[in-house]
């Protein structure tokens, strides 16, 4: 099996001893650790089931932030901070808030090193409260490890109007390396008129991606409001210059629809657009016109897993469930979840993706040919299992073969994947139900020390308005019988905006677990 962890997990040797590098410290530069979106840190030397289960594992620091956090923290070891009172070398956790503040925080002490703000956020866009009271930085930024640059998209008010700006920030001082660019785009519709990107109606929610020397960002809507204006976009810019790519992806290019309702959003509950080793892009789209009549797989690609060329010019393949019309009518977005790309496997279908949505079906698809659309069915997929309603996204690890971690409904489920002699997917274990509310599902990450000490981490959603707690959970990745044994649970913060899902991804790195919630970063570890 060959792995390619692309840009996201880099290793830094603190010292080179005769025995080699000691205590490698990982960087987490992108959502879910890598462009495949595995969510797997397989180099965790400190956190093991026996000590996470003990009283030694607890919240070490709670850092007060200025607003709700919908982004995943990113981690960089050995960053030389050059500004502020904390100048010097640190292991830094970067957190971006809906208040448009980017924090650089010392990962060991919880001390805030830098906290520049990039302008006023947009208050309750379009009156939609399916987000916090502010929308600022909503999508997880991405770091180019080599150039020590963070790319982040800020939603702010300029001259009285909401705009998006893409920034390229120096990790050392969080200052702009280049003038931030205004996000704009246009695309030709099927009647040859031009449709322009309008920041008033678009929500930049999926995590950003670096691949092919480009940074990519997807866009959807606010609450499905202004569905006559809002459409799913995937845009790209050259890293280093922030020059927009010549092409862009507009998911619905139809000029009219029965209800003037377009969308086909890219939102995925914040999960990142994924990229394979060839630089192809993968994402899932949401609902479009509720008449259920506008899908054609060309001019409108709603409710679909999409494989797109890295230059954004060509839809290479897609998979659309045959019941897409009923998904549309019921607002049952397939695109509420994210698409995990499994590392290359042996067998006749080495390139797989796993993708689930609101109705809880997780389809396993062949990335080389996703399966298309088969009116009336049967759908062409490699496998399918029910995981529970999924405003969520899968994780992955390998232990004696590939494993998918699903998090639909209120349970973590572990799925064993076999590809030889033929494909099979079987449930190896389930966690006890998390105390998790809001819409179905939640997010996970996995840590291990190679093949050993596998721990599945999860963060619940609030179950009530007060105190609206969210909790960090840890489960043993090796099932006991059919049960994933709970190792730990503890309150990690609050999420008072109960009308908008918490999509909190726990981040494990170098012996710590980072959980960003409402106005708080919690750092867990061994005391």
């Amino acid at each position, binding site marked *: 099996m060959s792995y390619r962890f692309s840009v996201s997990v880099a290793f830094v040797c603190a010292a080179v001893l005769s025995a080699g590098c000691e205590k490698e410290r990982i960087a987490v530069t992108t959502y879910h650790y890598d462009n495949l979106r595995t969510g797997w840190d397989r180099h965790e030397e400190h956190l093991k089931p026996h000590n996470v289960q003990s009283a030694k594992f607890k919240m070490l620091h709670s850092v007060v932030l200025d607003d709700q956090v919908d982004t995943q923290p990113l981690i960089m070891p050995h960053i030389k901070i050059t500004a502020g009172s904390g100048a010097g070398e640190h292991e830094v956790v970067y957190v971006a808030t809906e208040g448009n503040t980017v924090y650089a925080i010392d990962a060991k002490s919880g001390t805030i090193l830098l906290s520049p703000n990039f302008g006023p956020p947009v208050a309750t866009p*379009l*009156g*939609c*409260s*399916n987000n916090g009271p502010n929308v600022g930085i909503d999508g997880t930024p991405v770091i180019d490890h080599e150039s020590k640059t963070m790319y982040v998209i800020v939603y702010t008010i300029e001259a009285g109007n909401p705009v998006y700006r893409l920034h390229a920030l120096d990790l050392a001082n969080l200052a702009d390396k280049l003038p931030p660019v205004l996000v704009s785009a246009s695309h030709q519709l099927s009647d040859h008129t031009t449709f322009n990107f309008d920041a008033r109606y678009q929500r930049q929610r999926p995590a950003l991606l670096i691949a092919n020397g480009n940074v990519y960002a997807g866009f959807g809507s606010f*609450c*499905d*409001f*202004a*569905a*006559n*204006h809002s459409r799913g976009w995937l845009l790209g810019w050259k890293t280093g210059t922030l020059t927009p790519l010549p092409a862009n992806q507009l998911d619905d290019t139809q000029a009219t629809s*029965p*209800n*003037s309702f377009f969308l086909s959003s890219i939102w995925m509950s914040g999960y990142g657009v994924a990229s394979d080793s060839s630089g192809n892009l993968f994402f899932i789209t949401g*609902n479009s016109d*509720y*008449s*259920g*009549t506008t899908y054609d797989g060309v001019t409108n690609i709603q409710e679909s897993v999409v494989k797109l060329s890295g230059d954004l010019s060509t839809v290479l393949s897609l998979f659309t469930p045959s019941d897409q*019309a*009923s998904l*549309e*009518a*019921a*607002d049952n977005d397939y695109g509420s979840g994210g698409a995990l790309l499994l590392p290359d496997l042996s067998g006749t279908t080495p390139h797989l993706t796993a993708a689930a949505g609101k109705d809880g079906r997780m389809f396993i698809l062949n990335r080389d040919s996703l399966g298309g659309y088969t009116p009336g069915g049967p759908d062409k997929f490699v496998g399918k299992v029910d995981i529970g309603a999924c405003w969520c996204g899968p994780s992955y690890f390998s232990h004696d073969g590939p494993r998918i971690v699903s998090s639909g409904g209120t349970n973590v489920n572990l799925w064993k994947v076999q590809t030889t002699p033929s494909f099979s997917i079987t449930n190896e274990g389930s966690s006890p139900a998390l105390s998790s*509310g*809001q*819409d179905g599902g939640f997010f996970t990450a996995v840590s291990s020390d190679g093949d050993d000490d596998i721990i599945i981490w999860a963060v619940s959603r*609030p*179950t*009530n*308005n007060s105190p609206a707690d969210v909790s960090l959970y840890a489960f043993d990745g090796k099932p006991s019988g059919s049960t994933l044994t709970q190792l730990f649970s503890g309150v990690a913060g609050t999420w008072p905006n*109960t*009308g908008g899902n918490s999509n909190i991804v726990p981040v494990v790195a170098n012996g710590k677990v980072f959980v960003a919630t409402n106005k708080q970063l919690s750092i867990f570890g061994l005391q």
Partner: protein
Amino acid sequence: MKKSSAFTLAHAILFFAAAGFFTPALSCFARTPQAAAPQSKETQRAVYGTIRSIDASTLTIETRDKKMVKVNTKAAIESRRAGVLIVGRTVLVHGSYDAKGMLQASAIQRAKASPTLWPEDK
């Protein structure tokens, strides 16, 4: 709103709702305290509930305290501030009560299914 020529699930739901298949017994219908004492048009409300029936541009929602409230969706739909409306779906309605106690919606969005997550109505 333009009408589609296709008969979809959404239309079926709307049809059955209009035909009264999902309509609760009218004897259960009760006005909310707000409806009983109409507010000025300037008083903006935020009301959570479950859609129990749909009749043309009027929804009947059941609030957390089991009261039935009629909602005029016309302005919300015309201003494109309404998601897909389906019987059984939980919603948050922004708007104001008119003199007859009908909630004139300015926006309708999907709400979480569990009332324990609903903030207090305003």
